[in-house]
């Protein structure tokens, strides 16, 4: 027992936690922009799938992962545009629009991958030099395990930078203030001369771009191809992290790291310890329900979340 516990909890666990938390952090940050502006985004899963598929496809076609990454960002913004047009311009129910987008991107990748590559299940396997390279930022010679923590895909570092940047943007910039204003009290924001719809469009487009980055990390970072439904609910875990983190960047980061840790532990425990894998995988979902109900500490959404703004 002690030996297996030591096998599970060691320094490499930190490295795999960072790797597994990265797509969650990127997607949850995406969710944060949309929801702080008042637009519910349960489409994170679909946006991630769009990004993952586009990244793998464009990388397979061009051989260059950076082209794939850029295309993924654009694809995410395009999906964001669909969500924003539906919910802001045409005042569709935000949850329904999100559900439709999630269903859409279960189908679209398979349909296109079937037409492009003759396989609806997966895009072509990328070679080692076609996926995103590892980036070493710290390399202590005497500790290879410590070095493994600081030898990651660029998107891992980017995720942390983006958390700090998002915190700064929301708290200190005019754009951030406007996002919060239209998310809390759109009428007042409108009176103050802010075009509510425009801010919400911008926030949802950023949301799509970030979630798509999270998806791209899965297909051309952690793996080397896109497979059907490869996000496997990560968009919803990101949503859970956003709620668990009370819709603020630091809290969301901590929640993502915690859920990443849970996933890392569950992968390592397969077949070793007697806690069933299924229960460890349930942790993010159960915690979110507990937090929403206010059992641990209440988490309250932005006040205008889910309400379409109709200009008087």
């Amino acid at each position: 027992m002690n030996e297996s516990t030591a096998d599970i909890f060691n320094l490499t666990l930190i490295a795999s936690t960072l790797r597994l938390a990265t797509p969650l952090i990127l997607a949850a940050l995406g969710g944060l922009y949309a929801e702080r502006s008042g637009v519910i985004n349960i489409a994170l899963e679909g946006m991630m799938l769009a990004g993952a598929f586009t990244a793998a496809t464009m990388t397979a076609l061009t051989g260059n992962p950076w082209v794939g990454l850029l295309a993924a960002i654009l694809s995410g913004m395009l999906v964001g545009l669909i969500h924003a047009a539906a919910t802001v311009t045409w005042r569709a129910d935000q949850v329904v629009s999100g559900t439709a987008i999630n269903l859409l991107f279960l189908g679209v990748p398979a349909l296109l991958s079937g037409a492009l590559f003759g396989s609806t299940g997966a895009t072509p396997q990328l070679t080692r030099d076609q996926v995103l390279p590892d980036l070493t930022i710290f390399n202590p010679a005497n500790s290879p395990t410590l070095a493994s923590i600081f030898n990651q895909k660029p998107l891992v570092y980017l995720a942390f930078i983006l958390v700090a940047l998002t915190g700064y943007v929301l708290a200190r910039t005019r754009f951030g203030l406007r996002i919060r204003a239209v998310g809390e009290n759109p009428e007042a924001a409108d009176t103050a001369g802010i075009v509510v719809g425009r801010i919400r469009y911008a926030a949802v487009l950023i949301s799509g771009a970030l979630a798509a980055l999270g998806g791209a990390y899965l297909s051309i970072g952690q793996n080397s191809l896109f497979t059907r439904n490869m996000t496997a609910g990560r968009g919803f875990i990101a949503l859970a992290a956003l709620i668990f983190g009370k819709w603020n960047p630091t809290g969301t980061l901590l929640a993502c790291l915690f859920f990443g840790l849970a996933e890392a532990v569950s992968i390592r425990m397969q077949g070793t310890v007697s806690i069933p894998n299924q229960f460890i995988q349930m942790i993010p979902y159960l915690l979110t329900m507990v937090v929403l109900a206010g059992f641990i500490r209440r988490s309250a959404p932005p006040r205008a979340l889910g309400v379409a703004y109709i200009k008087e």
Partner: protein
Amino acid sequence: MGKLLTGRRLTGELTYPLLAVMAAFLIGGVVVLLIGENPLTVYWLLLTSAFGLYDALGNFTWDNWGYTLFYATPLIFTGLAVALAFQCGLLNIGAEGQLYVAAFAAAWVGFTLTGLPGVVLTVLAILAAMLAGGLWGALPGWLKARFGAHEVINTIMLNFVAIGLVSYLTQNYFKVPSDPIMQTGLIAEKAALPRLAVLLAPLGIDFPGRIPLNFTFILALLAAFLVWFFLRRTSWGYELRAAGANPAAAEYAGISVRRQIILAMAISGALAGLVGVNEVLGYRYRYYHDFSPGYGFAGIAVALLGRNHPFGVVLAALLFGALNRGGLFVDIFTDRVSKDLVQVLQAIIILFVAIEIFFRRGVVTLRQLLPGRTTAPPELEGPGRTTS
């Protein structure tokens, strides 16, 4: 609401769903064209393989209708589930989880209480499915009523919990050890519901026994009628709708909105749970893990397209069932288009139904362009969803 839909009102109810479906097919057609196939060929294939009464050799066949109705059956239940919750102002995204626990419960009764007589066992299995689904639905209802926790988030989370839970139970306690597939053992044969072939044989109709369409389809139609009757003809249904349409006014009139929320989610979950009856008692005769290709989510589309009316739900489920049936043929008989086209079409239909206002504006513009007519823009109607 009047006794029957008047002609004018019916036209109004059908216009926007039909526009949404047509718009979705138009976009789907463009996608098919870009992929490099002829959209007309693909759509003709969809239509004939879903509703055709004659096969390629010109012989009469029940296959197309039989399978279309079989695929429509679970969607009627999930569509009704979503529609009923919506009438109380709730969005139940948890039908997927509810139908999983329900299917497992039905199977458990079917392979455990095997000493009981056939009819009793069948009825108990159906009740177990409804109870399990109902409880799984009532939980987020209670969380909303008691703590104000948003049902959308909780039902999403409970989907994952449900699938994890039944996966755990199947894997560790109910799987046949030598079986490589994640499924339980078979239920008692006497618990199974009869296929339509058996039911139609006494009427002299030669319906092929290989088509899995079964008694559950009749249950689905009955459920649609009962939901309509409950919502429109009973005071309980009236209270439920009142709580959805205007919670403050309902509360003032002495209706406990909290109770209605829990009740609506429980009934909704029980309806979703009946999918498990079709799957376990009517089709596979065991719990097979991962059996649902997203019936719960398709139910949202079906409910919206059916305008949250029980009879509309049946029609919408028929359309989606037809798409699922036809999709298989598109997959086989075209080179480049896969059955995923159907998933894409369904998603686009939901988007277009959700942006009804887009079409309303279009219709208003059209009317204004017609000479000698000025029409005020039609008001948006239907219960608004409550947001926490």
